[in-house]
């Protein structure tokens, strides 16, 4: 029983991390109908920012994630201006292709600049700390990420539903021209959404180096899982991505432990196929 609970706990915590990565992707996807293939690379860039801040200036990830998020926010806005904005309204595949090229570019620039070495911040404040709870072990770094994830997602949800800008984003997602006619500067909205999407993954990437090593390929699998979570939850649905990500985390942990670790991603992708068979637009898609 204790093991079962531990496995569930691990899955839950990982799911929250996936949620934080997913929500940004989902936002971009839902509002702009753009598949950002370079999402994983944004994560990796954020991890590098945190790493270098920690390595060169001794800033703990607990603080430097803010810088990472800000950095990726700016990077995203620049990417939007240079790469995405010319492709808005063009065939949807072209944005996918462009971001694929971008992901290749970012990955190899990092390889070129930072070498392929694995980089790990060896002593972070929370690194390796755990809270023992009877038979259960609660790893602190993951817990912090999960809490941050919940806070961020709640904030975004409230922002999207309560604030004027959030409204404007929703309106833009539904009908860009009509939104423009309401006096909403939709190209600014797009840039903002792309930036927020980047910032979310930036936060995740900023916190990850507490226990994950950084290297140019670090984002690859995360982005793949994020894609599945987005589609599983339904594009653009914030609640959907949260629940889908948690579900993915749980399935991954349970199958990994009770079946075999090697099958955990098979199960995750299989889960997506099964869900999509029943609900072709994901759990919360419209």
């Amino acid at each position: 029983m204790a093991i079962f609970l531990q496995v569930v706990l691990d899955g839950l915590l990982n799911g929250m991390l996936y949620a934080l990565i997913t929500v940004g992707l989902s936002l971009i996807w839902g509002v702009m109908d753009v598949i950002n293939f370079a999402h994983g690379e944004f994560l990796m860039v954020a991890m590098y920012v945190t790493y270098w801040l920690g390595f060169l200036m001794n800033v703990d990830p607990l603080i430097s994630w803010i810088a990472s998020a800000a950095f990726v926010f700016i990077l995203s806005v620049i990417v939007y201006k240079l790469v995405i904005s010319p492709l808005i309204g063009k065939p949807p595949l072209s944005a996918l292709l462009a971001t694929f090229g971008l992901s290749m570019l970012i990955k190899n620039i990092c390889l070129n600049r930072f070498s392929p070495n694995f980089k790990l911040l060896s002593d972070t404040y929370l690194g390796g700390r755990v809270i023992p709870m009877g038979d259960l072990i609660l790893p602190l770094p993951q817990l912090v990420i999960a809490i941050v994830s919940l806070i961020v997602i709640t904030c975004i949800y409230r922002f999207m539903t309560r604030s004027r800008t959030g409204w404007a984003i929703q309106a833009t997602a539904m009908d860009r021209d009509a939104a423009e006619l309401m006096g909403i500067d939709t190209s600014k909205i797009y840039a903002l959404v792309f930036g927020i999407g980047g910032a979310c993954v930036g936060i995740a990437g900023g916190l990850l180096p507490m226990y994950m090593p950084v290297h140019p390929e670090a984002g690859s699998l995360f982005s793949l899982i994020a894609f599945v979570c987005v589609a599983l939850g339904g594009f653009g649905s914030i609640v959907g991505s949260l629940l889908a990500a948690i579900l993915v985390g749980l399935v991954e942990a349970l199958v990994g432990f009770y079946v075999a670790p090697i099958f955990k991603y098979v199960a995750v992708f299989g889960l997506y196929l099964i869900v999509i068979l029943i609900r072709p637009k994901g759990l919360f898609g419209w």
Partner: protein
Amino acid sequence: MSKRWGRVIASIIVIALLAGFAVSGVACAEEKVIKIGTLFPLTGPVALAGQRCKAAVEAAVEVINNSYPDIPVPLADQEGILDGYKIVLIHADHQGKPDVGKSEAERLFDQEGVFAIIGSYNSAVTKPASMVAERRKRIFMCGASSSAELTKRGTRYFFRIAPTDETESIEFVNFIKWLNETEGTNYKTFGVIYENTEFGKHAAQEAKKAIEEAGFEYVADVAFNPGATNLNSEVQMLKGKNPDVVFGACLGADYILWIKTMKQLSWLPKVSLNYCSGYQDPLIAQQLGGDGDYFMGTTGYSPELAELMPAVAPVEEIYKSKIDPPVPFDSDSIQEAVAMLVLAQAIEKVGSLDTEKIVDALYANEWDSPLSLGGKVAFAPGGQNIKAMSTITQLIGGEYRRVFPEEFANAEPVVPMPSWDQRK
């Protein structure tokens, strides 16, 4: 109308493309050079290892081409080989992909006209790439690929320096036997955690064979996907089966994650022995800090072995200048340097660039190799270096202490590993 234009332009592009080939194959001027190709994963998931291997070969070539009378390595005291021939390296990148490896090997031979190839780290790439050489009757020197199968293919032109995962597995098991005899431990249950790739799977297979042959119990077989986002269920599984001894075949980032996860779940085997790079990478050891301590693994070379191999230090200096950040040799990269040196010695000995004679010479002689543990290299049919040796070391305080076999040992192994809460 537009369809016709499509055709015209399509054909123009095709023709332009073909014309492009005309200017491509510009050959180097014939000087007194011997071209050797290197084929490593310079980009992609294992780029780190590939770049180190490349630098190691470069260091070896530096030693061969220039006169370093102070370095006690064959060919160091003279300039070049064959009376002034210099070795020129042509580097190629296979990205960790077998198909790319094969075509790059072909390109090196056919286009660049290299005399031999040194490569290519990933066993999965070495296999098809070395077949290219075999079919062209050219030499393929392999430093670090560890799959035992490579040297069981009945090839003639393929030579491998490093010990195989087969010999390493047997050594691991012998070490445990030795522990049980001398330290009074009673380790019986074994587990293997490995990345599910060519490398990991091979290692696991050999491990299983060795463990079962020795009459031990093989209780946990944990494969995972490389580049994992977490290893929680993997470690949970190990924890559940609780083997006394765990063999690990995890590369770089996964190795770090594995140890971090074990720490979080506060579990450790009594002994952990590791194949290949994660454990051996001195940078990783440094980054893991105290968490990496007490793990063991095979080591073909590490700075702590320098006292056994005095010739390494000056070569290592050259190597460090070629890699950023400067790190010491590790067990993989140094084997590539050895491969280069042995090949050069064979060429020098034969006195000409006759591949057949060089191959015969490679099989027939025992080569001095101050960069190898044991100091000698000799090849059995199939190309395996039968003098390949490695020690089992234990990492304590950032230092690789030699614990087995006894003739190399400089420290007593600390077993069982102190649990996480006993460490500071």
